[in-house]
């Protein structure tokens, strides 16, 4: 019989199982954040079906998983480019040039926030505090790589790296 979570690969389900094992057996849904990350890594973004699959696997209501997926902006509810650049524009970053950094990226790539370049390479997002205000302005690449002191020079370097 087809299960709702068949769309996730056995490898991804094995990874989710590792996360589930960290919590008491009757609280599987505690692993929802990790499970969504694993699903997103595999699928590129979190579609409605993917979220429903994760929820079904963890035995929780799909809307409860959707609450989590829509709360954090590291979860992508729409397809993103190969490189997702998130620029922090919260106060400490803004004071140290975060807005300028964002403007510079926009100009370089010719896109605004929440847009993707025509070649599907870059998506630009506005982010919230990443907890590294001392390194402001900061940017995040593909949700996992933190880049500090992102002045135009650094940004040029970063964009050149992203191929």
């Amino acid at each position, binding site marked *: *019989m087809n299960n709702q979570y068949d769309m996730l690969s056995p490898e991804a389900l094995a990874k989710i199982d590792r996360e589930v094992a960290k919590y008491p057996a009757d609280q599987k849904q505690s692993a929802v954040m990790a499970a969504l990350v694993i699903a997103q890594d595999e699928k590129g973004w979190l579609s*409605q079906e993917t979220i*429903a699959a994760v929820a079904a696997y963890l035995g*929780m*209501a*799909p*809307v*409860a998983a*959707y*609450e989590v997926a*829509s*709360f*954090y902006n590291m979860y992508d509810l729409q397809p993103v480019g190969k490189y997702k650049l998130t620029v922090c524009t919260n106060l400490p970053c803004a004071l140290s040039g975060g807005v300028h950094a964002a403007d510079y990226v926009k100009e370089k790539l010719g896109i605004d926030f929440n847009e993707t370049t025509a070649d599907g390479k870059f998506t630009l997002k506005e982010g919230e505090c990443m907890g590294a205000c001392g390194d402001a302005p900061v940017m995040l690449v593909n949700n996992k790589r933190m880049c500090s002191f992102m002045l135009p020079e650094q940004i040029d370097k970063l964009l050149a790296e992203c191929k």
Partner: protein
Amino acid sequence: MVEIEIDGKTLQVADGSTIIEAAHQLGVYIPHFCYHKKLSIAANCRMCLVQVEKAPKPMPACATPVTNGMKVFTHSELAVKAQKAVMEFLLINHPLDCPICDQGGECQLQDLAVGYGESASKYEEEKRVVPDKNLGPLVSTDMTRCINCTRCIRFTAEIAGFMELGQAFRGEHAEVMPFIGKTVDTELSGNLIDLCPVGALTSKPFRFSARTWELSRRKSVSPHDGLGSNLIVQTKHDRVIRVLPLENEDINECWLTDKERFSYQGLNSAERLTRPMVKQGGAWKEVDWNVALDYASHALRDVAKTHGGGAIGGLLSPHSTLEELYLAQKLLRGLGSENIDCRLRQSDFSADGKRKGTPWLGMKIADVSRLDRVLLVGSFLRKDQPLLAQRLRQSAKRGAQISVLHSADDDLLIKLTARAIASPSQLPAVLAQIVKAVCALKGVTADPALAGLTVSAEAQAIAQSLASGGTSGILLGNFAQQHAQAATLHSLGRQLASALGGGFGFLGEAANSVGGYVAKAVPTGAGLNAAAMIQSPRQAYVVLGAEPELDCADGAKALESLSKAAAVVVLTPFKSQTMLDYAAVLLPVSPFSETSGTFVNTEGRVQSFYAAAKPLGETRPAWKVLRVLGNLLGVTGFDFNSSEEVRTEALGGQPEFVSGLDNAIDSGALNLTASATGFERVADVPIHFADPLVRRAPALQQARDSAAPAARMNASMLAKLGLVEGGSVRVGGAAAVTLAAQLDTALPDGVVRVAAAHSATVALGAMAGVVSVEKA
């Protein structure tokens, strides 16, 4: 107990209470939105901030537990300042659309804004706009009005059992929504409307039709399932346009099922019969009451005179009032007929004459919540008695163990401890195994008839759960009562309960399932029961409030017998083409909203109500019509001047609970032999098709629960027949019908599930029994 002081008044409250509970005990009102006594505490609206002595800042009264010696000030300067500040924030994004809002006049936000809001807002920026959601045909949304109290979310998760709503996104963008593209399909969804403290969730059928202050209201009682939920029926210009729950902690608490809340639409249906009609020379004519009554009484008298009273049969709806049932049976007995029955969907009547009293729930409804071990036998509980399912859902959360023995495994949204799913013919055997296992565990001597049984693992698991302590209850659902061996299930259930020292009862199928027995609307002696009256056709029938083709166990046969009868007198609020085909005279009688009457609910509670609206057209209360018929036919003892007099005669007084309730039965030898070859039919009665009124409520008919019946089978049965889901399948009973095949993994082998009470499946005939199934 701790002693606290609220606004200078001291009181004793239980440990662990919150300030708001203590204040309510004292009659002090603390403004609030997100707090609801039946839901978990969220403390997110902050409206209930109060001052607590020695606390450095205002505390939320709903989430602050009381401590000994605590001093609370609910209206101090600090408290009121905090409450006003919260109100200012709540109103920042709330639209000023009260004039076009359905909640206007009964809105908590509106009321509290009068007390705590400023006359002008300091906020000048853009207000947020939230897209509306489609929650289905019953609940309408205006999500911009939402104040994110999350009551609706907590309701779906905690009371209805499945979180169908959630709060997506974050901060200012947070919005309440169902999962993308889904609707709210719980059978309790209408309660969201009551719970919403603002106008974000309102009633779709009621939308824009009236203001609360234009409505007159009457207390009433639900005419649907056996609980007899208490209602407030609201009318405008003598038309019922809204039904709300009347809180009764012993019955429906503060909830209503969607069926009870929205069935009122059927009262205003175009199919209402408003004038008496008689068939003359094959043509229907609208006539005056006296002509119709003359016609009806002559027809009945003629049949009684030429063929004897026994040639008349009475099929009475168990949704009729006690008074109607009482007068109908009195009339029929006066004509010399003992063929009277209101148990229309029952198929096994072998318990008749062996019962010690009226079958009932065996306990109070409120006591169901106190059971620690429950076995549900043959019950589509969530659809048949949704509010009892709700009670058991809460019980399971506090640790009660609920087990199920059934022929289908629908998700009750209750955490089950054990379950045994077997085909209908196997149910008695499995129940017997459970009895045997419990007797062994309890060291009680089992019925010798059970000696040869082998106890299956499922039965053993259920037995172990039941025997593991606490108060236990064995409850027989509608399916068990409609089962072909209902009497066997009855005696086995009793044996099980007595071995456990626990309760045993029947879940009332209809509003007056108990009342029918009390009103003597059941045959005695040689009288024919509902099935027999249909199997051996009568010359004449009196039908009260029922549509036998949909409301009887064997609708096809019922239709055949009615069509052959010389005279069928129908007392009905509705007319249908089928009725026009078989009836000789149609007498328009009031539905529950237009007559005074009484329902005796499944716990035996007598609940009387008054008419909420004037009878439509020339409709008359059925008790008056029966009274006049009694007079015309010269039956003695028909001099009633009010429905109360009828009630007093029927009940022998004005008791709060009826007497004579007893589930005991002289069982005799048990018959556990099961013989079923081929496919057994499992017939559920879909929630929105169970009675003539709800079948005519358009909004409910669009709900997901009202989907057209399919032939449901498990995967191996589908494979065996070479079927795919959605393919056509021919199901053959009395006649064959073609239905869509549907996968239902929860069904046992050898079973096809086809809903009853639906025009698409009437031709199949008996609800219980064997049918043929083949690929079409």
